């Protein structure tokens, strides 16, 4: 069976030979035109005049469009229609598209786009959380509050209290392939759009609105993206819509791709947060009550900020059973790029909040932070899947006879945690990483050092799987079996490097009992599978794998019924395996079986559909079961820091991650390794800086530093936890796209642990913990300044 095999990425050979085709690689018709946006140079105000004569007369320019030239909707928002494609006269951030240049070449369009003479009446821009809070500039009428019990009372009644606050920066996606789209006008006004998007249906929807046609007249296709990470969930809308409008107007194919600097200046990033925390706990560090306030920097448009901020709240417990908790979330509107989806979708921010709090308490009580975490873990389920009694939380109350009393194992939003794997997973990781011995060795080494200190930290991850907007948890597939036995399939998911196509193909091959060469997945296409959800929320394999399974099973059942009848045997005697079909005592090739079915006039094409069961969620009340299950993992990171310069480095990382019964262990390990490094980058070197005018100063890789090759841990041990999903997911696997990102939190905690060696206080690092931030914290601890 193909499932569970560590096969390479389906396009690996195309990747390494340069033959994998991305949007910008498609050969263009000779008359194709190229687009670029003219951008605002202020962060807030109104346009008083726009002189575009120099733009129009710039060499190669074919047309210049402003909002007045748009035929229908001027909107590219994925949520509440608050994002005009081109400014309606008001300016909301520096870098906002004001006008659209259509030219004979990419360069001609870029050159012309800089020649606009725009005058503004400038208004005071809100560039910080404080400024937004002071003017009550926000989305939604007030803060969202989720709570369980009376947190304030629990904190007050607890023997110990702690409080703190820190800044948590945003993050640029830095997908290697920038945003790109191509629109090819078809007969009868229809439009074919090739877009680097995680959400083809949304592109279809927004393009249809913009050119005034029903969705049936717009077809969107995407074979692959050069990375997405959430940055292509809504941020591709503007390019696709611009191309479609220009193509409609000129009758010619139109392509747009952002230059890297434009991409970083125009598009949204991960939401920056300020997190304040307060907690009450006992001498052993058991949490009694916790309060969080999240100030969320949403930027200028709503985009996906509400569900992102919700998910941050939903991960404010992470792995811990907190008796009383209150989370207050302010979604603040500022004059910066509109923050958007980014791997983890708010989850990482919420999780950093609670991990910081726990770390602070452990420091305060001088208890090993891992031990303190385990004391607060949720309880494990009564029975492990491998049999035997499950380890439980050490803090679970016992009655006099020593028997465990089941305690409240529900999340702050009222969902029972029934699949908590972290007790066993933590034990295994501590052992394989030699945590205790290394901790002692590091402490001894640190005593011999003056300017350098090493630090070690552990961080667990519990990440909720499912879209919190429940209706998105659906997927479709279309499968054809041809008469030569080859299988062609499409599903609603998009390939952005995560290996979704290969995993889904493995499912299809397994259902038909055929080899992988027999299965082909082609570009995601809204004409093949309609009404798709974004490939996001780690849901790709779970949803599309199930939909494909359903379609394959429909065809397989039809084939089996026909073959059983034709060969006069029972249905249960028709078995599909090893490229053969065994029918009673006979065995024929799958190809021969397909041919027989075709000749027997059996339909060999089917759609499949799946919707995640058991979900129920009220996002206003903050109550329900938003998630089908949780994915787990844990990491231990060791770092070294230099107090003189703040320079630091990851020396070793050990990870154990729960991918359930993995569909493809090697691809999953790839997600874990890559997720960790990206998460660690977020919390260390990746710093977004805007100047006082709201101008993003880190708008290229020269100034925005994602991890480079030597920044990965010197020693990097990654393994998958042996287990299976307790819920009925596709082959009992678990989603693996986002959860490993949060394993990077241990890098940040390890830096804090190292800095703490320079003095007596708690380092209180902000994130990202750049060298400068570490230098500052180390100086504060050693010199009190």
């Amino acid at each position, binding site marked *: 069976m193909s499932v569970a095999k560590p096969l390479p990425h389906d396009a*690996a050979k195309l990747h390494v030979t340069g033959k994998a085709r991305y949007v910008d690689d498609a050969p263009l018709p000779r008359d194709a035109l190229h687009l670029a946006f003219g951008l605002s140079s202020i962060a807030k105000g109104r346009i008083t005049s726009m002189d575009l004569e120099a733009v129009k007369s710039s060499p190669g320019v074919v047309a210049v469009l402003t909002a007045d030239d748009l035929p229908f909707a001027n909107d590219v928002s994925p949520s509440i229609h608050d994002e005009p494609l081109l400014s309606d006269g008001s300016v909301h951030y520096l870098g906002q598209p004001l006008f659209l240049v259509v030219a004979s070449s990419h360069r001609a369009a870029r050159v012309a786009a800089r020649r606009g003479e725009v005058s503004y009446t400038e208004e005071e821009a809100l560039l910080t959380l404080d400024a937004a809070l002071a003017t009550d500039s926000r989305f939604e009428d007030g803060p969202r509050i989720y709570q369980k019990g009376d947190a304030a009372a629990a904190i007050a009644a607890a023997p110990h209290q702690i409080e703190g606050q820190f800044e948590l920066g945003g993050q640029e996606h830095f997908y290697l392939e*920038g945003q790109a789209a191509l629109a090819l006008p078809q007969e009868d006004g229809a439009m074919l759009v090739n877009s680097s998007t995680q959400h083809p249906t949304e592109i279809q929807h927004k393009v249809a609105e913009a050119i005034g046609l029903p969705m049936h007249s717009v077809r969107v296709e995407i074979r692959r993206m050069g990375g997405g990470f959430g940055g292509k969930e809504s941020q591709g809308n503007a390019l696709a819509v611009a191309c479609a409008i220009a193509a409609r107007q000129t009758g010619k194919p139109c392509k747009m791709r952002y230059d890297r600097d434009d991409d970083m200046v125009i598009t949204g990033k991960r939401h920056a947060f300020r997190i304040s925390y307060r907690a009450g706990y006992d001498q052993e560090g058991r949490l009694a009550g916790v309060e969080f306030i999240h100030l969320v920097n949403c930027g200028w448009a709503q985009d996906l900020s509400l569900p992102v901020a919700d998910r941050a709240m939903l991960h404010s417990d992470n792995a811990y059973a907190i008796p009383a908790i209150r989370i207050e979330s302010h979604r603040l509107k500022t004059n910066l790029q509109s923050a958007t989806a980014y791997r983890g979708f708010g989850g990482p921010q919420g999780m950093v909040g609670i991990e910081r709090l726990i770390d602070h308490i452990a420091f305060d009580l001088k208890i090993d932070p891992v031990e303190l975490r385990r004391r607060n873990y949720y309880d494990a389920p009564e029975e492990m899947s491998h049999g035997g009694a499950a380890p439980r939380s050490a803090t679970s109350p016992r009655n006099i006879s020593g028997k465990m009393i089941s305690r409240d194992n529900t999340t702050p939003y009222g969902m029972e945690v029934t699949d908590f794997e972290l007790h066993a997973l933590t034990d295994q990781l501590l052992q394989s990483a030699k945590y205790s011995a290394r901790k002692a060795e590091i402490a001894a080494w640190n005593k011999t050092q003056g300017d350098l200190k090493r630090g070690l930290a552990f961080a667990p991850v519990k990440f909720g799987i499912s879209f919190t907007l429940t209706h998105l948890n659906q997927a479709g597939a279309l499968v054809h079996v041809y008469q030569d036995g080859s299988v062609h399939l499409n599903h609603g998911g998009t390939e952005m490097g995560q290996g979704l196509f290969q995993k889904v193909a493995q499912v299809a091959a397994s259902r038909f009992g055929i080899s992988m060469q027999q299965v082909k997945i082609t570009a995601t296409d809204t004409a093949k599978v309609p009404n798709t959800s974004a490939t996001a929320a780690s849901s790709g394999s779970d949803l599309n794998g199930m939909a494909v399974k359903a379609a394959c099973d429909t065809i397989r059942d039809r084939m089996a019924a026909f073959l059983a009848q034709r060969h006069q045997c029972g249905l249960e005697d028709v078995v599909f395996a090893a490229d053969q079909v065994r029918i009673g005592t006979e065995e024929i090739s799958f190809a021969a079986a397909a041919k027989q079915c075709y000749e027997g006039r059996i339909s060999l094409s089917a759609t499949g559909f799946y919707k995640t069961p058991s979900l129920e969620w009220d996002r206003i009340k903050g109550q329900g079961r938003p998630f089908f299950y949780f994915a787990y993992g844990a990491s231990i990171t060791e770092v070294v820091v230099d107090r003189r310069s703040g320079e630091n480095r990851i020396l070793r990382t050990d990870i154990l991650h729960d991918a359930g019964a993995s569909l493809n262990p090697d691809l999953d390990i790839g997600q874990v390794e890559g997720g960790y490094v990206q998460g660690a980058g977020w919390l260390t070197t990746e710093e977004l800086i805007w100047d006082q005018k709201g101008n993003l100063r880190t708008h290229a890789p020269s100034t925005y*530093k994602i991890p480079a090759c030597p920044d990965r841990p010197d020693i990097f041990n990654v393994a998958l936890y042996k287990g299976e999903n307790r819920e009925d997911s596709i082959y009992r696997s678990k989603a693996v796209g986002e959860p490993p990102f949060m394993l990077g939190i241990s890098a940040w905690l390890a830096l804090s642990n190292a800095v703490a060696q320079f003095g007596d206080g708690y380092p209180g690092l902000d994130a990202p913990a750049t060298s400068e931030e570490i230098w500052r914290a180390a100086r504060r601890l050693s010199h009190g300044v």
Partner: protein
Amino acid sequence: MTITFHLNGEEVVLKDQDPSATLLDFLREERGLTGTKEGCNEGDCGACTVMVTDKTGAKPLNSCILFLPQLNGKSIRTVEGAADNDGTLHPVQEAMITHHGSQCGFCTPGFVMSMVTAHKNGATDHDVQLAGNLCRCTGYAPIIRAAEAAAEAPVPQWISKESLPAATSAGNMPGSSDELAALYAAKPEARLVAGATDLGLWVTKGLRDLGEMIFLEGCDDLKQIEITDDEIRFGAMVDMNRMREAITPLHPSYGEMIRRFASQQVRAAATVGGNIANGSPIGDNPPALIALGARLHLRQADKRRDIALEDFFVDYGKQDRRPGEFVEAVSLPRQEDSLRVYKLSKRFDQDISAVLGAFNVTVTGGQVATARIAFGGLAGTPKRASHVEAALLGQPWSQSSITAAVAEMGKDFTPMTDMRASAEYRLESARNMLIRYFSDISGNSQSVLEVQA
């Protein structure tokens, strides 16, 4: 301008070529070779890496900031030419598949070409070879596993034998420094192009028209490195990888700094002369050269003059260079090694320094005899810390002298705050570098780069 090169084994002759066209645009737009990707268009991500072979061997170069005339007489291999014509994959391609070195695949062609080049050159310091290739998906671990796995495989014959065409010599492509001197004297308004790692961005990001360009690539006599008992002389067109090789045995700390100077691809293009002549206040090479007492050799037509390197940098954006005058070489006196160079940046590799400090203090009879201390990133030019130096001269080489000298740093520099660092951090780090130098020289200091788990 007529340019001749080999592209994946085939000869290409370009007549009347726009000299400011980049190789990347040519490959993708003119030749339909779309395997080579545009990731950042400024030489920072490596997605556009190709292998370029010239008389001195194979180098990885960023094709996005490489002007076509720089390729005259050379041979280019793109990802489409990494495998054999019959489809047999290169060992690094095989290894990248087996070890799951690609996810989204967009950075992969660039990685493959960096790896093909390193493999051909027998280089196994993979982290150094690949520091200029960014990947956002894999976390690099599987790519390094692939590089290690392929290291032992023999170089395929289609890669080992790379023939070179004869360079054409039409237009502004002088073949020697004498030709250059005459040409530039006649056209002092022209733009001199050495490695184009800075000028390339004027075109790709600034969208500027560079006007008339003179390409120095053909001036082989400017690529000499001469090491005598008295001095080391680097021709202006010596690239930074070659400089690293030459300087490492003499001044290891300097060599280590150059290892972190940009990336393999950028160092293969960037030149010693260019890094000085562009006058950047954040170029990493000038402070180190100044600390070693470098002299700059300038030439205009047949007139030559030498100046102390620090005197070349007059002010921000202003250098002591006359119309038609160009940098011919830089020379250093041979000396005992007491140089230490500290590069502070947000990321270790391929990052512009927040502060670059170079320290060269000699001690005679327990007293400071000479002190040359220079910094980049603290002022509008690379600059010596003259107050700090003065505070050290003649003093005992001791902790207390260092403490006194450190206090002078604020008189030398008033750094600025920008996206790389705050003024405060810059100044304080500069002070700490001097403290570190003192313990370093006495063998008591370690860098985080040397610590292992």
